[in-house]
């Protein structure tokens, strides 16, 4: 006997639900986390390897980071780091059962977005 296909709840991102700040920021939290894992962490390790390998390797690494591919990777990493750090704090507050009202969740969302822009700008200003 074949089971009748049961109705499934559709995925939040897609044609069935109206895009909302909460769901979009949630998927962006995951995407930024994946980017930090796959690009950000290797960049940090590469920096350490370059420092411990000597001045030539260090200068070559700085050269790459200053080029346009390196700059794009560094800027994207700093953007993801700022967002994931601030939105992660928002998630940790939620985990304590606080700030879960829709209005508060949205306000905190705007604070995170504004903070991401400010923190990324500060880091870029210092590092460039």
């Amino acid at each position, binding site marked *: 006997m074949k089971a009748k296909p049961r109705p499934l709840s559709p995925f939040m991102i897609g044609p069935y639900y109206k895009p909302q700040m909460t769901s979009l920021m949630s998927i962006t939290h*995951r995407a930024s*986390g994946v980017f*930090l894992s796959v690009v950000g962490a290797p960049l940090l390790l590469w920096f350490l390897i370059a420092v411990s390998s000597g001045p030539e390797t260090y200068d070559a690494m700085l050269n790459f980071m200053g080029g346009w591919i390196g700059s794009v990777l560094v800027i994207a990493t700093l953007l993801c780091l700022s967002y994931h750090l601030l939105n992660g704090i928002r998630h940790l507050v939620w985990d304590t059962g606080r700030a879960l009202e829709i209005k508060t969740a949205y306000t905190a969302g705007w604070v995170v977005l504004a903070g991401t822009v400010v923190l990324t700008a500060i880091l870029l200003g210092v590092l460039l």
Partner: protein
Amino acid sequence: MNMRNPLATARGLGSAKEGVHHWYAQRASALLLIVLVGWLIFAMIRLSGADHAAASAFIGQPVNAAFLILLIVTLLYHAMLGLQVVIEDYVHQPVLEVVLHFLTRAGALFGMAIGIIHVLKLALGA
């Protein structure tokens, strides 16, 4: 009548008080990372425009080396737990899923080893 201790059938199969381990570890490492990434931001500001001698001297300081090793281990552990959930949620092809889980864990462990060795090399002046 089953004479086996119920605990024996529960251990390793069901939620034998380990159900929240992944959830808890993800959050505990997140809390630690708030502090450690705060230190990383301080380090990035200190090291911006630094030449090789200044950078290796900074990392060679015992406090900075300790922060870096803690950061590398906690960061890669947190990344490993996060990637695991993403793979579980979005990859439904069994072989690919197992391969990706393996690569995630192997990559995190390898990254920890590489990172710790290079920091120790600078800290111990080898």
